[in-house]
């Protein structure tokens, strides 16, 4: 079985090499698809974010997760109940970089007839591991777009490859991302409640990412791709003089194509949470609504029961009670 799979992959690779001159097919997948994907991404993403941003935030509705600022001798919680811009930035950084809210996660268990809420860090760890390793992986990919490779990228590569157990250098991020994605995928399958709430698109994104990352891992460690040629292609794409070099492996095209699918799909999917978090009114607003007036741009007058109307209806009763 294993040898058959190996043979199959080798056949695929040969297929890729057979390309010869710049065929229609390689041009399509090497040039048209990535340009289209980026165009869709940019248009879709900006449209999405600008749409959100153009909608007003009528009320100041931070969710407060700590002591408010009130009397001078009561210590407020600067970040969980932010009163200043500094506090909001801190709260946002905590959310974006450390997943603060997921860190709080509790797990419900019914023990006997009592519900218990124990801290659980699995989701937090899985999500954090995935997002940070994705960041490192993407950052390392900068070497394909730059000439010469910036020293910061080289530094990140050094850090990422700190455990030198094999040649080529094993990058931690590449391994962690696959493990984390697998965990995130498996938890959707095995927990009944996760299965209940998961939509097809939730699985789709995870499978897509798993496909991309495993193709990447395979390319780096097992079925080498000519990185010089990849760099050539990328350089030509970003300089808008696209030339597809010969001899790029099929595995590369698979990896590249899936990335393009992800990029094009991004603005239409839940992945826009990447931008949405920054605009989330429960997290990005200050909790100083009693100290600083907040204006709702579409605030309109509503019909009121005025004192005069009320007085007309109640003057007898007021008189009877001897009230002014």
């Amino acid at each position, binding site marked *: 079985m294993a040898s058959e799979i190996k043979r199959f992959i080798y056949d695929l690779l040969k297929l890729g090499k057979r390309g010869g001159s710049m065929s229609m097919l390689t041009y399509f997948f090497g040039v048209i698809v990535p340009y289209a994907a980026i165009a869709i991404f940019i248009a879709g993403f900006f449209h*999405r974010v600008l749409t*959100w941003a153009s*909608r*007003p*935030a*009528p009320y100041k*509705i931070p969710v*407060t*997760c*700590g002591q*408010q600022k*009130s*009397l001078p001798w*009561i210590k407020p919680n600067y970040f*969980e109940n932010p*009163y200043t811009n500094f506090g909001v930035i801190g709260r946002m950084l905590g*959310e974006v970089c450390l997943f603060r*809210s997921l860190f*709080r*996660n*509790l797990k*419900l268990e*019914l023990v006997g007839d*009592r519900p218990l*809420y124990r801290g659980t860090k699995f*989701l937090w760890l899985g999500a954090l591991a995935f997002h940070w390793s994705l960041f490192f992986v993407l950052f390392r990919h900068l070497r394909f777009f730059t000439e010469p490779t910036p020293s910061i990228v080289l530094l990140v590569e050094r850090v990422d490859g700190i455990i030198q157990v094999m040649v080529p250098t094993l990058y931690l991020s590449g391994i962690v991302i696959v493990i984390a994605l697998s965990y995130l995928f498996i938890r959707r399958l095995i*927990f009944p*409640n996760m299965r209940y*709430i998961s*939509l*097809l*698109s939730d699985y789709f994104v995870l499978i897509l990412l798993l496909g991309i990352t495993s193709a990447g891992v395979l390319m780096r460690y097992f079925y080498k791709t000519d990185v010089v040629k990849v760099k050539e292609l990328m350089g030509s794409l970003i300089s808008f003089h696209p030339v597809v070099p010969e001899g790029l492996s099929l595995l590369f095209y698979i990896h590249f194509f899936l990335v393009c699918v992800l990029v094009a799909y991004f603005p*239409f999917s*839940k992945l*826009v949470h990447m931008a*949405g*978090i920054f*605009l*989330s*009114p*429960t*997290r990005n607003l200050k909790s100083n*609504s*009693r*100290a600083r*007036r*907040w204006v*709702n741009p*579409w*605030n309109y007058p509503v019909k*009121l*029961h*005025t*004192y005069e109307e009320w007085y007309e209806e*109640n003057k007898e*009763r*007021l008189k009877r*009670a*001897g*009230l002014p």
Partner: protein
Amino acid sequence: MVVIPESEELIKIDYKPPKKKWMDPKVDYKRGSYSYGAKLKDQKTLDLPNKREWTPSNPVEEWGLPENWKEIILKKMEELKNRYRSSLYLDICVRCGACADKCHYFIGSGDPKNMPVVRAELLRSVYRRYFTKAGKLFGELAGARELTLDVVKEWFYYFYQCSECRRCSVFCPYGIDTCEVTFWARELLDSVGISTYFIMEPAANCYRVGNHLGLPPDGFKNTMDMAIDDIKAVTGIEVELAINKKGAEILFIPPSGDYFATPHWFTFMGYLMLFDYLDLDITLSTYATEGGNFGFFHTPDTAKRLNAKIYAEAKRLGVKWILGGECGHMWRLVNQYMDTWNGPADFLEEPVSPITGTKFENAKATKMVHICEFTADLIKNNKLKLDPSRNDQWKVTFHDSCNTSRAMGIFEEPRYIINNVCNYFYEMPENTIREKTFCCGSGAGILADEMMEVRMRGGMPRAMAVKYVHEKHGANLLSCICAIDRAALPALMSYWKLPVDVSGVHELLGNALVMEGEKERTTDLRLNPLKRRGE
């Protein structure tokens, strides 16, 4: 009266979701889990859309919806989506499941549509179908659902089983606030004339008369006289109380529950005793007799219409600033909405305590101070003579109310007061208090008798946390700073068979406050004999 299962039965909860997908909107209306339709007279008072009598338990085809109901709802949805940036919560949920077991209604019922993520999906799925490309193209594959009458019926059931408590939002990595989603759903339902009796009657009363009960000015005056008599019975002092006094320094706005229900009543007595003790130049009003706001459980417009009376009355009376009583959703409004809706309050002055001179800078725009902030400041400055042993009959625990916790963050002030007026104070487990606090189960218009099962299920997590301190420390008093809590928790305690009473914080203050010239106290405000330590 709705008959509901005994607590021993109710606690047998199965958290395993059913085979049926949530996308199927069919829902069996279970008695005890939904409120009645709003009465025609209340719809008329507030001039709501599509006025008629209707019955939720009838088939949805007989609800009397307008012929173009679908068009109306979708148009409203378009409008809401463009009005609120928080509508991005309809786009960014990744269904990570962190919120799933955080909702007290889910914990108490196991009904998977009470998971916050699914509750929001009930609305999001319709949004996707009509307002997103993926939903239009791929339909159910993209998690999109047609808007059908069954969906409307499902919305009514589940969006009136959300107490807008925001606990899920604390745990959400993007802060997605189901409370916002519930607001929209209720507003969508209202656009075709769907609202509940239990919310609209108090709202209509409040609009027309001034408070939820519909207590007119003479009745209000009688009630105040009763409070004065009751205080006299305990302390021997006849407290002074101004009503509709022009030119007073402070206008006091209590939640009306505090003067027409028990155990709220004792908290109300506590307020009045404090004001008299300090000789405050403070007045109550018969036009704005309500800080609570059931309109908030209906639509923001209704809430704004009721809330407007507070500033209007403050202006008419010419007071300097406003003091607010112990109430949950009232304080969400005062803290996050009032100024935006009905401000600027430029006719008022920045609140300063006339006793201590403390400037309440955190309230300098809205000009309304929470009575716990006010009292904590007094105690800190040694302005109150207190005898905490008069509360020795109580082993006190404190329930953080949803709104004051997650839409304000007033945690230390009430605790500081309790610690100064009581000798025995015990916290409930850490994951059930402060920002992680549980709802009483009856917030946001669910405090109806006919919704008893939902209330007892939703209150279960709170009840079990109380059970813990009751068994461990003998706690026998659950104090809180919310009038809905004070109405909801006694029923919850008795249902879950906990011999624990419920009180406001200022009831405890009233017990401990040593007033000048008072007679020797032999009872607390409830007329129970005092039991000092060692007696």
